[in-house]
């Protein structure tokens, strides 16, 4: 029992220290912001509150820092608040506080489409504009959703990348997540249509499923290469799959002969882009997402976008149009050896 207690104590210590480091992060970025006046009638200098799913998450650190730069560029006051854990209702108190402090706009990535709805609508009644990004809430609890990419865009960018990397001809295969994953299957169907219509010389020989499990995806990649010696490329539209496939490829004969692309995150793929296993992969750019969310919030505050439609200027990103309460960021972003060093998420 003594040993058991020691283990528990060690675990508790770990959890505590993790909590401390997380809250330290929060203290740096968030501040209390309690002395912030509501800003009066000056529309250009309102307070823009960013509320990520949780603090200390490198993905949201990237998008919120870009949001901060954008808010400061157009003269607003930037604030970041958020919970330590991405649990469904953890964001509610932060939304309430932002409403009470009279923030001009709230930029949220929702942990749950339902749980924060009431709080958001109360904030909107208090004349706070609500923008969601990355993860949407129900459409009736926000003013605008910044959509990172459409299914068509995601499918097309992956087909385009593989076509470019294998010279638009040869056998390819897909390494997916679970066989019943809805979004994966929708993308795969769109990719098949795109291949049939625009790339007649590329043959999709097999689709295998790694269940978003590192080990299974890894072993499936090995089997795929064994079973199809003429394979020219692999598309893996899942972050777990592409990292596992890259790990296998980087240590096999097929390195450099079989192209690999798909959806991945820079931190997982850095090693394999640097050693030449992977040329290019895609995902949306969270920095652009943060920038666009900031400008969209400003457009709502300024009245350029009303009732979910209208167009606005988003700094360096150019002009965007909101339709039915949604603004589309655009094509997924491609990561390669030239730019992967700029990202940490």
């Amino acid at each position, binding site marked *: 029992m003594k040993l058991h207690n020691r283990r528990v104590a060690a675990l508790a210590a770990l959890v505590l220290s993790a909590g401390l480091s997380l809250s330290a992060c929060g203290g740096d970025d968030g501040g209390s912001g309690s002395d912030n006046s509501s800003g009066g009638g000056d529309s250009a200098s309102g307070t823009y509150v960013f509320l990520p799913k949780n603090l200390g998450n490198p993905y949201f650190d990237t998008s919120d820092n870009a949001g901060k730069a954008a808010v400061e560029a157009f003269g607003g006051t930037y604030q970041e608040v958020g919970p330590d854990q991405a649990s469904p209702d953890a964001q509610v108190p932060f939304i309430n506080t932002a409403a009470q402090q009279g923030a001009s706009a709230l930029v949220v990535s929702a942990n749950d489409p339902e749980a924060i709805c009431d709080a958001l609508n109360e904030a909107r009644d208090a004349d706070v504009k609500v923008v969601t990004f990355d993860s949407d809430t129900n459409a009736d609890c926000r003013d605008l959703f910044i959509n990172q990419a459409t299914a068509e865009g995601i499918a097309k960018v992956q087909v385009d990348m593989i076509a470019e990397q294998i010279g638009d001809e040869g056998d390819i295969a897909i390494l997916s997540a679970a066989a019943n994953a809805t979004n994966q299957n929708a993308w795969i169907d769109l990719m098949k249509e795109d291949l049939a219509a625009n790339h007649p010389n590329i043959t999709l020989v097999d689709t295998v499923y790694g269940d978003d499990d590192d080990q299974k995806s890894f072993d499936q990649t*090995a089997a795929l290469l*064994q*079973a199809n010696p003429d394979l020219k490329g692999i598309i893996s539209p899942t972050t777990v799959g592409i990292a*596992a496939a890259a790990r296998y490829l980087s240590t096999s004969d*097929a390195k450099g002969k079989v192209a690999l692309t798909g959806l991945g995150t820079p*931190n*997982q793929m850095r090693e394999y882009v640097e050693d030449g296993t992977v040329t290019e992969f895609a995902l949306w750019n969270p920095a652009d997402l943060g920038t666009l969310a900031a400008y969209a919030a400003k457009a709502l505050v300024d009245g350029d976008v009303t009732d979910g439609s209208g167009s606005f200027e988003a700094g360096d990103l150019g002009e965007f149009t909101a339709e039915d309460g949604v603004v589309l960021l655009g094509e997924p972003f491609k990561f390669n050896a030239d730019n992967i060093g700029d990202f940490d998420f």
Partner: protein
Amino acid sequence: MSTDLLVQPSATSPTRRVLGGLLRSREIAVFTVLVALILVTTVKNDGFLFSSTGFRDLLLTPCLLLILATGQTVVIITRNVDLSVGSTLGLSAYLTGRLFVDHPGLPIPVVFLAGMAFGAVLGLVNGVLVAWGKVPALVITLGTLYIYRGAFLTWAGSDRINASDLPRGFSRLGTQQLLGVPVLTIIALVVLAVVGYFLWTARAGRELYAIGSDPDAATLYGLRVSRRVLLAFVVSGALAGLAGVVYAARYGTVSSGAGYGIELQAVGAAVIGGVAIFGGSGTVWGAAIGAFLLVTINRALPILGISDFWQQAVVGALILAAVALDRLLTLRQERKLVEANDR
């Protein structure tokens, strides 16, 4: 009259006895299936055996399960089972990654020892609960399976260890070869040889078989049953810990799902290799061949053109076939013993 022994020495010549034993042995049967599978797959695609990556993967892929199945066999022989090995593997794999992240420059052997020691402690918890709690191991280790996995989720959260977090020397270990044989396979084979030798010759090892055949008799005979069962669980935990380090080296990525569900494969490998689930019989050699077969089947079926969805069914059929074979052999032996008695 006085020369009548309770058990008569066998009248057949030693050579024929050894040969007959070999022919009847389960290990040889499973090994034959394995060789046949490799041959058929190689005929279909010669890269399976003859390309350098193919040969390496053939030896490398099974080593994780081989280590786990070895540990599992030690436990099953004592008429227990350890279902927590998948969670132990995951925790130890994540510990490995964290050690490299938090203490860069830590020597690799130290990390291997840390993983094994950590696994041994988790195994000790199982052993204490089973040996002195007098609760079936199935229930205890099912409980610790969830507890360990829960602790892992709390510890790791959505964090993951990426390949770029691990030192080059360590991730290279995942594919490094010595005279054409992967280092990880050598580690697995050394573990197998040590445990196999221990079970075969050491007194404590033989006692494990005695305990598994009849726990009550073993207690009456004066064997220290609790202590031996504890030892079996510590060995299983330590080997699961080692497998965790091997996992990190091989796959380079550790998330909180690492090792999920692999405990059943370890039990399956042992059963296919002729380890009786009710304890008392079977060898780690058999379990090792079973692990090799299980992994190789999964790799060979796609090459033979059998779809993903059927592969699990094939594995299930294999387990059922192994159990049916066991039952058949037991019945035959019983009949023979009865006949010998009647005569």
